[in-house]
């Protein structure tokens, strides 16, 4: 079981390296998709079908949007590589990250042996206390409902931001007062703006 997981993880690492190094944007998007789908298989092997379903579905959605975006872009080839300075800097920071994570990883519980303080009680009593036979949903929407409200708020804020940034023009029409308030416009610009009136 663990050896399959290791093979899958190595496959994912190779996929992400290809995604970074590929010359064409479309092939790196496809490599990102490979990493995502491998991740969902890894979730499935670790016994988390809920997250596996979510991962597959979100990956499909993101791939559709990204491929749609990259196909219609004019310039999809990446030109020029980085110099030696960025390479050295990233190497140094990656080394620092490895050193610190070496010390940090020793503190966390071993793989496959979680602490099980609160989660043990959740797993034992979730079915009878919430009535939901899917323990994950029982925890998400009953024990930890407050966290889920936070997630919904995050998603809502993302939508509001996307709509605010991506809309084509502002809702407010330009008036004479705005021109006075801005103050940095030249006279000819203001005349040009108000030609239609």
């Amino acid at each position, binding site marked *: 079981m663990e050896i399959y997981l290791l093979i899958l993880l190595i496959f994912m690492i190779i996929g992400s390296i290809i995604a970074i190094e590929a010359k064409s944007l479309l092939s790196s998007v496809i490599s990102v998709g490979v990493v995502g789908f491998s991740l969902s298989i890894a979730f499935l092997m670790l016994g988390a*079908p*809920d997250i*596996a*379903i*979510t991962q597959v*579905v*979100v990956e*499909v*959605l993101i791939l*559709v*949007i990204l491929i*749609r*975006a990259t196909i*219609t*872009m004019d310039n999809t080839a990446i030109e020029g590589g980085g110099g030696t300075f960025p390479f050295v800097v990233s190497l140094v920071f990656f080394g620092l990250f490895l050193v610190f994570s070496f010390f940090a990883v020793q503190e966390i519980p071993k793989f496959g042996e979680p602490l099980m303080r609160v989660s043990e009680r959740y797993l034992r009593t979730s*079915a009878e206390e*919430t*009535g*939901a*036979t*899917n323990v*994950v*949903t*029982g925890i*998400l*929407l*009953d024990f930890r*409902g*407050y966290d*889920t*409200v936070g997630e*919904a*708020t995050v*998603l*809502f804020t*993302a*939508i509001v931001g*996307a*709509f605010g940034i*991506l*809309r*084509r023009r502002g809702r407010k029409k330009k008036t004479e007062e705005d021109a006075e308030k801005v103050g940095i416009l030249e006279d000819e610009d203001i005349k040009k703006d108000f030609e239609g009136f």
Partner: protein
Amino acid sequence: MPDIDEEIRDTSKGMTSIVKTVVRFALGIIVIFGAYIVLYGHLTPGGGFAGGVILACGYIVLTLAFGRQIALRKMNNKAASILDTSGVLAFLAIGLLGYTGGYFFLNFLGRGKMFDLVSAGTIPLCNIAIGLKVTASLFAIFLALSIFGRFISSLVDEDE
């Protein structure tokens, strides 16, 4: 406004007729599967978020295959905004209704019999609210990227 059947058969919009035929068969299955994932979230793996993303994928498939005029007739960006907001508010209202029994997010409805579709109190209602919210908001993001945005030029140029 032209008839919707004529607009569906219009070959100049959207993708080829092969894609359109396949989508016509597959779309119902996609939507039913998404609704199943949402409604059975408290019994089987899945839940509001995963099911909502599947439903949003259904709308996106419709947009890509038939062009955006047909998809906008099913759900335009105003309807998507309203559904999105109402989903959040419904979820919050279910949480606040818990105060009738004492505290936030109390499961105030009866548990029911285990493995029944109508069981587990407020959890299926929360799933439906989240599913509604995720469907509308992800489709709205897709619309925002494809209609308001400039980089997906072919969709924008369709009627300009």
